[in-house]
Structures are given as structure tokens and as C-alpha cells.
């Protein structure tokens, strides 16, 4: 039974959907966090985090491949029965909601700090919800096309970020392993979380057309993200030095401040406005997952009504509540704590459970 046939996405779209979800807001502050914990060796943590996330995503794909037409919502119902299945379903929806809230509020906060200091946050929220609504409404296929298009559209951005590399001092990267492996492993916890986004494979895998390449696709998606993280972190280290980087809240943006042309100044304003594209490919898949999950809970095929309610709720929230920077950081750390369980530990548990269940059922048949 092919439930999601109409909404099939290609392997390329799948890759860009996942890597688009991974590269978003985390990257803006990642170099600072890494330099804080591991100093010069922060970049090694990214490579380790990359390997771990590949393993985790492989486990997810292996689990999902047992029932190629099921999303996590169908799967939880299938294996955990009505009550526990619904609980897991709800937990995943709550996770996606938390993630989308964090992304949207961080995007608003950054926009307010850097570009529009005098605009009230509910106006920006309304503005952000317009494309969010338009793209989410049309389902996975349009979502995937959007991610793909944005990928091509933003290809110039990493090149630009690499410009300060010329002015940097490569000696800042030394010494390697100056305090041994301990701080690196501490930093891995941070890097692992910046790879969050691959767990959306739980939802998007059934829509993939060529499922046999799914693992390869996950590896490529993770690699694209890892490459971007590495590029930016190394650039920050070389340019600012690992000692100075932690003093900046958003080192990636500070990096851009130094780029100057004879005809445009304050280039980071333009860059950051364009960066909204990158943030949108992080936020919109999570919004979609939330809305899709809720409408699945009620057994509805069309998610437009839930989407309208969600968009209204988002706007209403922004009317009543203006998060400060520390609130946003708290929200982010909740997401990360939750994500550690949802994206790394839960898949392993699920994989073992599903394999065992199948093994037992297979045993019964014999």
C-alpha cells in the first residue's frame, strides 16, 4: 500500500531537506560554544559528531526500512498499541513543536537584534508565518522542492564566509590536542546536537521515492552539514582565534562584519536577511512535522485546518510573550536535551524493540 505516493520526493530533495533542517540557527553560535569547551580542538569534535550522527541516522533508516510506508506516527501505533503509541506520537509532536518554536523565536530575535530593532516581534512573526503557511500547506513535495531550491540559492553564502580566511592566521589552529581528548568529548555533546534535523527522517522517509539509496542520502546530508559546520568553525578560529571566539555571541555573524565592499557597507545586514532562507528550511520542516503529526492524530488527511490553527497560535503567542535572549537560550537547551533523547537514544531503543518484535513474530510463524 502506497499511502504517500502523490507526495513522493526524489533523493536529491531528500538530501537537501535533511541538510536544510540541520543547518539553521545552531551554526550561528556553534563556533563560540566549541571554542569555549575545547578551544583549538573544537573542530575535531565536529568530525566525531558527524560520525555519531551518521550512525544514528543509519539506525533510523534501518528501523524505518522495515515498514517503508510508515512514518514514525504509523510505526508507533503499530508497535506500541493504542495508548503507548499515542504517547510516543504526542511526544514526537511536542518535540517538533518545541523545535519549531525555538527556530522561529530565535529567527525573530536575531532579526530584531541585527536588522529591525524597532519592529515589534508579533509583526515579524506574522511576516514569517506567511511563507511558512504557503509552503507547509502544499505538503511534503513542495517542502522538498523548496529545500532544494533554497540550497541552490544559498550556495554563494559559504564562499562568502570563507573570504575572511585569507586574512586569518593559520597558527591559531595549533596546538592540536593540547589538553588531550577529554575536552573534545565534552564538545561532542554540543556538536552532536547541532546535527539535529536528521531525526526528521522518521517523518520524511516514507515519502522518498528511491528508498534503497536512503542511507547514502543520509550520509550525504550529514556530510553537507558537517562540511558547513567545519568551514565556519575553522574560519572563526583562524580569524578570531579560539580564545576570542567565545566572547562573541554569534561569531558567524561577526565574521561577516569584516567583509566590506566599496559600494556596500554593513554587509552582514544583507547576508542575514538572506540567511532567513536558510533558517526557513530549518523551521518549516519542523512546523510541517508538528502539523502533520497533529492531523494524523485526528486521522485527517488534509492538514490545512491544523496548520491555520498552528499559525494563529504562533502569532497569538508572539503577541503575549516576547522571549528575552536568556529565554531563547533556555528554549534551545530544552530542545537539545529533548533532541538527545529523541534523535540518538530513542532510535536505538526503537530499533532493538522493532527487531525483537519482528524476530518473535517470525519465530511464531515457524
Amino acid at each position, binding site marked *: 500500500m502506497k499511502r504517500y505516493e502523490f507526495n513522493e520526493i526524489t533523493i536529491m*530533495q531528500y538530501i537537501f531537506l535533511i541538510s536544510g533542517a540541520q543547518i539553521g540557527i545552531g551554526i550561528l553560535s556553534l563556533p563560540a560554544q566549541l571554542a569555549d569547551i575545547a578551544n583549538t580542538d573544537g573542530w575535531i569534535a565536529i568530525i566525531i559528531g558527524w560520525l555519531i550522527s551518521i550512525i544514528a541516522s543509519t539506525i533510523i533508516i534501518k528501523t524505518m526500512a522495515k515498514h517503508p510506508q510508515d512514518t514514525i506516527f504509523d510505526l508507533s501505533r503499530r508497535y506500541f498499541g493504542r495508548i503507548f503509541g499515542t504517547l510516543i506520537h504526542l511526544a514526537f509532536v511536542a518535540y517538533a513543536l518545541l523545535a519549531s518554536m525555538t527556530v522561529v523565536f530565535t529567527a525573530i530575535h536575531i532579526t530584531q537584534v541585527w536588522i529591525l530593532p524597532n519592529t515589534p516581534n508579533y509583526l515579524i512573526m506574522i*511576516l514569517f508565518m506567511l511563507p511558512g503557511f*504557503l509552503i507547509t500547506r*502544499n505538503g511534503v513535495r513542495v517542502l522538498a522542492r523548496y529545500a532544494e531550491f533554497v540550497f541552490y540559492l544559498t550556495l554563494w553564502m559559504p564562499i562568502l564566509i570563507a573570504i575572511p580566511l585569507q586574512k586569518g592566521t593559520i597558527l591559531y589552529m595549533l596546538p592540536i590536542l593540547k589538553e588531550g581528548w577529554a575536552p573534545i568529548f565534552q564538545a561532542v555533546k554540543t556538536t552532536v546536537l547541532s546535527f539535529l534535523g536528521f531525526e526528521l527522517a522518521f517523518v520524511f522517509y516514507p515519502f522518498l521515492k528511491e528508498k534503497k539509496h536512503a542511507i547514502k542520502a543520509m550520509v550525504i546530508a550529514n556530510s553537507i552539514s558537517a562540511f558547513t559546520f567545519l568551514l565556519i568553525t575553522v574560519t572563526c578560529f583562524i580569524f578570531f582565534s579560539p580564545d576570542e571566539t567565545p566572547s562573541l555571541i554569534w561569531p558567524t555573524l561577526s565574521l561577516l562584519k569584516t567583509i566590506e565592499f566599496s559600494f556596500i557597507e554593513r554587509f552582514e545586514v544583507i547576508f542575514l536577511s538572506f540567511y532567513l532562507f536558510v533558517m526557513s528550511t530549518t523551521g518549516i520542516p519542523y512546523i510541517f512535522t508538528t502539523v502533520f503529526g497533529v492531523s494524523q492524530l485526528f486521522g485527517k488527511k488534509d492538514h490545512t485546518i491544523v496548520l491555520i490553527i498552528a499559525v494563529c497560535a504562533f502569532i497569538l503567542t508572539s503577541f503575549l510573550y516576547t522571549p528575552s535572549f536568556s529565554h531563547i537560550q533556555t528554549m534551545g537547551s530544552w530542545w537539545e536535551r529533548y533532541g538527545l533523547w529523541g534523535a540518538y537514544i530513542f532510535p536505538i531503543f526503537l530499533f532493538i524493540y522493532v527487531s525483537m518484535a519482528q524476530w518473535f513474530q517470525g519465530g511464531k510463524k515457524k
Partner: protein
Amino acid sequence: MNGTQQLLAHSLDANEQTLRDYFTKTPDLVYCHLLIGEPKKRALLVYLNTLVDKNSINNNVISPLLFETRQINTIADIQLPIGAKSYATIWEHVIQRVFQGETALFLDGDDHVLLLDTQGWPQRAIAEPQIESSLKGSHQGFIETYEKNIALIRRYLPHQQLKVETTTVGRRGHTSVALLYLEDVTHPEVLQELKDRIEQVDVDTIVNTGELMQHIEDNPFSPFPQFLLTERPDAAVSNLLQGRIVIVVDHSPSVMIGPMTFITFFQTVDDYSTRWMIASFLRLLRLLAFFMAIFLPSAYIAALSFHYEIIPLNLLLTIGESRERVPLPPLLEAVLMELAIEMLREAGLRLPAPIGQTVGIVGGVVIGQAAVQAGIVSNIMVVIVSLTAIASFIIPNPDMSESIRLLRFPMMIAASLFGLVGMVIGFMLIIGHLISLESLGTPEGSPFAPARLRDWKDTILRFPLWMMRTRPLSARPTQLTRQKKFRK
């Protein structure tokens, strides 16, 4: 007469009476009584004087009938030097054909009527296309007669796989609509979808192709065109070969082509007859023009009202100097000038040529130095408005150019409310809309989203012709190979 499904009578007088009852107040309907054959037999020739070729009737119908010496018993005995003829027994057919300029020949004692193709009506000679002029392509443009238009296309493709299917649209107009396609290339599902949509159209008549286009397009709430209208046969043929379907509508000089993709509206047939580097450059230029036409005025507004810090100091001083005397905020200034130039364009379009020049001169003064000296707008604004206008003229397709001109205004408002962020969100909305837009069920955003790398050879750049070996996937062709690799 009640019910045109009625059959004809055997008696000539009865038939004539029926005709006279039906065609009241039709002074151009000619009843020509004749006695033909040996022995003489009564016959009646009926035609609409205004829609026939009189020479043809006199020489090829009346003259041979008058000199007929054989015995005529039934209508089938009549031999006339006219190729296209048919018989009818139902009034509805007779009346419809007469209205299309055919001649009906009634014979006493026969309930069949002979319909002769004697059409001839005022029509324009084939001339150079007015809207889409070409440098290197053919200089023949479509005209208002659809047979001639089909002929123009067939001249390029004398091949049995070029199929023509005709149907009529409209209860009153019975407008003939012909679908042309290459049977071994066009996807049957796309074709069926198009046929179904045309069949559902239930209107009085189709006056112009643009009306039919609006009745059958996928998303009527989109600012972007989903079908291509062209008045150039070579453009139609080029699209046929890419697996698309050409829709020729009678009495309209433009044909409709679908399914299209967004990027095809920025291409012309001339691109293919120009050397590839130059053609690619022109395409890049058009893409740049697209962004300029949409974003340039809004970028000005955003920079002046929100982000003056991105403008380098020297430039900022110049702008400040030129805006010193201007009382209007940037948005109002820009909207005012943009509206002025839109009005100028529209005025120039509708006015006859001799007066049209006046508009140019007057407009040049208004949107120029005088406005600046009067202190209404700034110098920079004049430059921006002119650049925007030129950019929108570069877009080869008039429908797309109009969409872009329209989109500029919401973009300016967004820029004045939210600065660059507003512009980016506007751009996001355009992209979000474009990637969900479909033309005849095929994605309009192709080959970018969904990405079809193989199609990229004929989009932003135009690769050398010998490398374009496949047809674009966006039209879902059933036969992909266009040419073999014959050049090393």
C-alpha cells in the same frame, strides 16, 4: 423553427420556407434559384454573401451548374470543380456550415444537401509579428484564420506524427480550436488533461486566445502566466518539438502553448539561432532584468528607510543631497514614479502612432529633469525608475513582463514596512508560490525545483545545440532523444 435537429424535407419549397423562417433579418443570405441538367430540375443555392468567395461561387459552382447537360436525379449526380464538399441531412449542420461561409445546394426531391467549401472572408495578409519582433527568425506571424495558422506550422513539420485535433468552444461562437502535437513525443496524460479542460469550457464564445487560456489554466489566482501566448510560428514549432502542445484558436492571431515552465518565459526562439555564448549572455541578462524589475525600487526604499548604514558614506551624501528638497517619503516617491511610468506605457500602447510620439516627449519631460528640478522626486529615483522600466522591457514574454511589473508594487510596500526582511519574505513567497504552481499538471518550477539537472542545459545558459540531445523532461515527453550525437 423549433429544434434544429430536424431532418430536411424532400420538397424544395418546404426547405426554402424553413430557411426563410430561420434566417429572418439576414439580408446577406442569398437564395439563388437555378434550373439544372436535362431535363431541367429545380435547385437552390444558399450562401451568406459576406462570408464567401464570390469568384469561387460564380466560376466553380454556378457556371458548371448552368451548363450541366446530363440528367440529374439525385444530389450525388452533381459534379463540381470544388475539392472540399460534404453532404448533410440535418438542419443544424446545414445552418452551422452556412454560417461558416459554406454554400448549400438543395435539389428538388432530395433530402440531402450538398455543402461546398467556398469560404472567403476579409482577412489580413501574413505579416511580421507586431509584439514579438525577431532579428534572425522567421518574419511570418500568425493571422486571424486558423487554417492559415495551422498551415504556417505544418510548413515547418511535414511529418505524419504532427497530429491536429479540432473541436469547437462556445455555444454561440462555435469557435474552432485545434490542438497540435507530436503524437510520439507528447505525453498522453497531459494531452488528455488539456482536452478535458477545453471540453468543460461553457461560454458564449471565445473572442481571443487569452480568454481560453484563463478558462483552462491551473491556478487562476497566480500572478504568473501558465501558458505561453505567441504569434510566431517558429516559436510554436520549437515548443512542439520539445513535447508541448500548441492550441490554435480561430480568429485570434496568437496561439497558446502548454505545459510551460517558469524559465521558458525568459527564452525566445532567437536564442537557438544565435551562437550559444551570445544566447547564454542574453539569457543571463534577462534573468538579471527579472530581479531588477522586481527588486530595484524596493531595494531603494529598504535602503533609505531602514538600512541607510549599508550605503557607503559618499553615496549616502549624494543621495541625501538629491533628496534634500523632496518632501515625500521613499515609498510614496517610488510609487508615484512607478505609477507615472506605468501610465505612460499604457498611454503609448493605446494611442495611434502619430500621437504616441507626443506621449514619449511629454513623458520624457515629466519623468526626468523637470520633476527633479521641481523638487518632487530625487535624481536617484529617476535613475531607478528608468532602470526598472528598461529591465521590464527586456523580458521577452509580454505576459511575464506584466506579472513582474505588478509584483513590484507589493514588494515596494513590503520593503517600506520591513526593509530587507520584507523583501526576502516577499521573495520567499514568490518562490513558495512558483514551486507549487503547475501548468497542465506539470510542475512550473522545473527544472530548478524539482531539480532536473539534465534540463539545465537549456535554462539560464543555452548550451551548444549539438549538446542538446534530449527534450526537456518538464513537458513529460514520451520520446526523450531529440538528436543523436553526430559531432565530436
